[in-house]
Every structure is written in C-alpha cells, then in structure tokens.
C-alpha cells in the first residue's frame, strides 16, 4: 500500500469566503480554581474548546489536576469513559497570558476567593475585565461568575459595556445543571440571548435574575443555613439529622451543612456580611456557629473539618 498523501485542507474549500465559526466553539476562563475549573470542565464535556488563565505555571499544573480529578470522578460514577476523558483533555489549554484569549467569543472571570479573607477583590476583577477588552473583539462576551452586586461596576470602565453579563453556576452542588443569568445595567438583549444559547449548548437550564446580592440561590441557601445553625444552638437537633430531614424529606442532594462545607465557611461568612450590608436585615447576619467555625479555620471540606470531618478525598469520616 502506498503512503497516504497529506496536505492542508484549506485550499479545497469551495469558496474563498471566510468560514462561519460556530458561536462558542472556544471560550476562556480567567482563574481556574474550584469554580473556574468546574466551569471549564462543563464546557469541555460539551465539546467546547477552553483556554484558562492562571498567574503561574505551577498554578496551571494545579488547575489541570483539578480538571482531571473532576473527569476521573465522572468515570468512577460511570458517567464518562477513558476515551471521552482523553478527548475532553485534548480541548483544554492553560496560559499565563491574556493574548491567548484572542479568538474566544466568550470569556468568564472566575478569579478565586482570597484564601485568608474569603473575598474576591473588585479591583482585581476590574483589571481582568480591562485586560480582556484589550484582546477580545467587541462582540465577544465578557462574563463574571457572580453572586453579588458587581457586574454593572465591572462593566462600567469598559468601552463596550453592553457585552458584560453575570453568570452564577451552582458549582458546589454536584449535578446541578442550572445557571442564574444576571443582567447588569448595561447588558444588551443580544448578549443575554447569546448567553441563553450558551447555557443550552452546555445542557444547563437557566433563569434570569436581576442584579442583586445573593441572587435567588445563595440568598435562599444562606437563610436556610442561618436558621439551621439557630436550631443547633437551640439544641433542637444535630447536624446529621437536620441534613437528613433536608435530603430524605425534601429531596435535597446534600443537605444544608454539607453544602456549606463544600462551599467553604469563610466564603459563606463573607457572603452573609455582604447581604447584611446590602439589605440591612438581621436575618442575613452570620450565625455565631458560622463565625466560630470560620475563626477556627474550620472552613469545610478543603480543611478536612467544618460541620463534618473529612478525609483527604473529601469523604465524610464516620
């Protein structure tokens, strides 16, 4: 058998016209921590190419490990094959440079929470938006993974403000295929429509929520958590039993305390303080139980201790 002839394909096109790119064939993620890598993984699994940015090569390597761990978990649960994992990983690229986002039609900022303070600095995120505007085309969407009032502020210094939008993935709840889409004051209808299309592309349901502290998901969750902590203090029930009522009784996936441990207690305290500040209502004030855990640095799964105790792979120790 003779050797195959190998040539580039381009000259065999029928017309010279530039090829139509499918929208969202390549997206970017800034910050590939827990939430960033969850978003990247979802996109990869739906056939989208992903470029993610981290400040150092070491952090890039860590992000790859996180993505791979997420994929492995899917294989363990029968939801993915080795081969599909390989294909997914072939679609992802890590970088330290913004210019590698060139050609993306959508980039989402998911800068992680500060390890010490549990905050995401607005100034840092503004800088991300400005950097993104330099390398992206004016039509490209710039999004932020948000649960607080911030998208309008992040957009305010950009030249093309109408392309900014907030998204909230419930990445701490496994299998929760829903996105809260947050329109800022500047967000155009076109941007919103495109994001709805993106959500469908990654097989997620979506709801539109007005820019507000905590949106629907976080606001409801925090109130529930605060009330559950109240019950602990009153001695009405214990951690396991309260989660049992929620999981068995109401069909919640994890229960309120386990979800809190997944999210990180320090983040939760910050979010509550933010809501308390925004709404001024006592009910958002973090419960002393949460403050106590936070001060002890019992942040949850990642510290091996929160409401529950965990082993290294995040399983509850009995």
């Amino acid at each position: 058998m003779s050797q195959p002839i190998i040539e580039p394909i381009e000259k065999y096109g029928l017309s010279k016209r530039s090829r139509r790119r499918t929208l969202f064939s390549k997206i970017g993620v800034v910050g590939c921590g827990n939430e960033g890598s969850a978003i990247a993984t979802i996109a990869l699994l739906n056939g989208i190419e992903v470029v993610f940015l981290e400040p150092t090569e070491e952090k890039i390597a860590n992000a790859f490990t996180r993505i791979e761990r997420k994929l492995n978990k899917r294989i363990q649960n029968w939801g993915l094959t080795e081969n599909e994992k390989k294909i997914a990983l072939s679609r992802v690229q890590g970088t330290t440079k913004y210019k590698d986002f060139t050609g993306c039609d959508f980039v989402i900022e998911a800068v992680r929470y500060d390890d010490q303070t549990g905050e995401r600095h607005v100034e840092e995120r503004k800088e991300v938006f400005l950097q993104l505007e330099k390398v992206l085309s004016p039509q490209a969407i710039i999004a932020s993974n948000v649960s607080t009032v911030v998208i309008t502020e992040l957009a305010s210094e950009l030249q093309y403000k109408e392309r900014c939008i907030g998204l909230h993935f419930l990445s701490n709840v496994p299998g929760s295929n829903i996105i809260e889409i947050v329109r800022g004051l500047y967000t155009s209808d076109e941007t919103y429509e495109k994001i709805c299309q993106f959500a469908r592309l990654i097989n997620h349901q979506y709801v539109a929520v007005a820019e507000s502290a905590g949106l629907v998901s976080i606001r409801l969750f925090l109130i529930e958590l605060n009330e559950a902590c109240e019950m602990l203090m009153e001695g009405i029930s214990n951690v396991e039993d309260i989660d049992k009522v929620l999981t068995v009784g109401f069909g919640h996936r994890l229960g309120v305390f386990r979800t809190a441990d997944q999210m990180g207690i320090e983040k939760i305290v910050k979010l509550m303080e933010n809501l308390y500040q925004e709404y001024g209502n006592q009910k958002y004030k973090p419960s002393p139980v949460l403050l106590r855990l936070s001060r002890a640095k019992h942040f949850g799964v990642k510290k091996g201790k929160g409401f529950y105790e965990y082993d290294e792979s995040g399983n509850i120790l009995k």
Partner: protein
Amino acid sequence: MKILVLNCGSSSVKYRLLDLENNKVLGSGGVEKIGMKGSFLKHIRQDHQTVILEGEVLEHQTAIEYILGVLTSAKHGCIKSLEEIDAVGHRVVHGAEKFNSSVLITNEVIKKIEECIDIAPLHNPPNLAGISAISELLPTVPQVAVFDTAFHQTMPEYAFMYPIPYSLYTKYGIRRYGFHGTSHRYVSHRACEFLNMDYNRTKIITVHLGNGASITAIENGKSIDTSMGFTPLEGLMMGTRSGDVDLGIATFLMEKEMIGPSALSTLFNKHSGVLGVSGISSDMRDIETAIANGNERAKLALDMYEYRIKKYIGAYVASLNGVDLIVFTGGVGENQAGTRQNIMKGLTYLGVEIDEEANASARGKEALISSAGSKVKVAVIPTDEEFMIASDTMEIINEMKKQ
C-alpha cells in the same frame, strides 16, 4: 447516474460517490473530528490512493464543502464540476412511524424528520445538518432520505409494542423501532440473489454484528421482528452496549451508586458489553488475542456474546416458524469465522450443517458457508449500506423523472 451518499454522524461525515450505471465507486472517504482539534478529511481516490487533508473543520456544512471541493479538485477529484452529481442520498437514523420507506426530501419531509428529534436526539440533528448543507451548496440537486428504521416498519403490532402502559406509546411513541434496517434489507436481498432464492418466499434471519449488533427475522421480504428496540441498546450484547438486561438493575444501581439518568445511560451504552465483561476491549480481535493468551474474562465475554446471538436466532426461528437462510454480516459477522462456527454448532437441531472449510476461508466476501446437505443455508454477505442508499436514491429520482 452519479449519486453522492452522505452519512452524517455527530462529529463525522462519511461519503461515497457512486456511478451506479457502471457500478463504480468514484471516490469515498470521510471527515472526522468535526468541531474538535485534529479534524481531517480522508479521501480514497479511484486508484485507491489515500489522501489526508488536515485542518480546521468546525461544522458539518464546512465538512461537506470540503468533500465537494475534493471530489471536484483537479488533483484528487473524480468529477469536473458539481453539476455532474445527479442526486444526494442521506442516511437518516430515525424515521419513527412517519417513514416506512426511502423518500424524496421536501420541506415537509424535513419537518417530519425534525419531529423525530425527540426520540433520536443524538442522531437526527447531524443528519439534518447534512441535508441543509446540501440544500445550500447544491440547491438544485434532488436529495433522498433513507431511514435506518424504515425496513422494520412492517413489524406487527404484537412484536413492536412493549408490555408497559399503552398510554406511554401514545404519549411519547415508546415502542420498538429497530435499527440497521438498511443493512438487513441489503444483505437479505443480496443473499437471495447470490443463492438464487426467491426473496418473497423465504424465511431469513439476518445477523448484523458490528460495533452495534442486531438480528432481524424476515418473512417473505418483510421484517417481522428485530432485536433493537426503542433505542439501539436493546437486544444482542455488543462492543460496549449491554443489550438485553433486567431493568431492575438500573433502578437498583441508581440507588446504590447514587447515579442519575445520564450516568446510567453511559454505563449501559459505553461501559458494558464485551468491553465491560472482558475489561480489555470492545474489539473482537483484541478479545481473540487475549483468549489465546489465556485470559478467562475475555473467554467469558466471547461465550456470552455468542450465546446471546444463538438464543436470539432460536427465538426468531420460532417467530418465523422455521428458517431457510441465515445471513451473517457486519465487521464481526463478515470476518470472525470462529464466532460464526460456534453459533452454528448450536443450531444443529435445525439441520444447520457447516462447511468448515468454506466458513474458515470466508473473510469479508460473499460466501455460502453451510454444506450442500444443510437444511438451512448459511451465508456471509458483506453489508453495503451506501450502495443501498444510492440505489434507493436512483429509484426515487427515476420515478420522479417519469412524472
């Protein structure tokens, strides 16, 4: 008449350009990894030279554009201009109850195919993408849709219904549709031609063993039962699909392993079958190698695979009240003499008598593998769905011209 046959999958487009009157393949090949990194077009010229064209192919429309570009190129092509293409035949996976034969594609037909998306969410959309690409690129060329399910539309109601609440049939169209119809139709026809039997007066069991596997009972030219059902998961054990299992396993696992519907579907479709049991591979050649090396799980996988085929043949002999002809096809059916032999050894009660030599030497070519004295004829017929699609297309175009 030159006919282009297209088979659009979720990330691939396979094609073949045939000159039917002169019975020649002018060019064939496929585009793989559409929308992914490393996409390429592999073209096989008439002189059998392989040409690989590498580059970005983001969607089906672009893939088809490149296919047409290669076919008309001076360097590797086989036609001078696109006008030489008289018609395009498309493989369409699911025609539900709306189509019982191949049809000329019209706006109304497209609408009906779209309506089938609900029950074939993975397959029909790329088929439709291929149709719309051709409508745009070759607007005057007639197109024909050939359905995987159409041949089985002759199944009687008692064979296609599931014993579950009838309302689910009326509400969602849950019933057995069967797949691989084009292949079963082609090989059964071809076997009768090859053996000089009357297609319309013969009881045939066709055994299609490829990546997917299905088996069909054909009486007097009509499919009366087939092993695949509402989805291609039912029936025989396959490379990575389980085939028939107790549904109780699904509900049991959902609870035990805390998994949802999509993981469950991956488990039965991709982690099961020969791969799942052997833990080695879904490819029968790898399994045979492993067995030769003494691997017991590989042996078990093969035993199960063959046993389940034999069991289905037995069931269909009963459905047909006898059988005159058994036909093997598909990658495994055409090439694995050992598997064919093991299956036939268990059918001696029917009067099947194997010609061991003929069986051993039949690899990927048409052959009679039963002995002269065998009460039931057994044949190997390599499947050729593209030819069937092209020939249906020609028939419909000729019909159209007459009117």
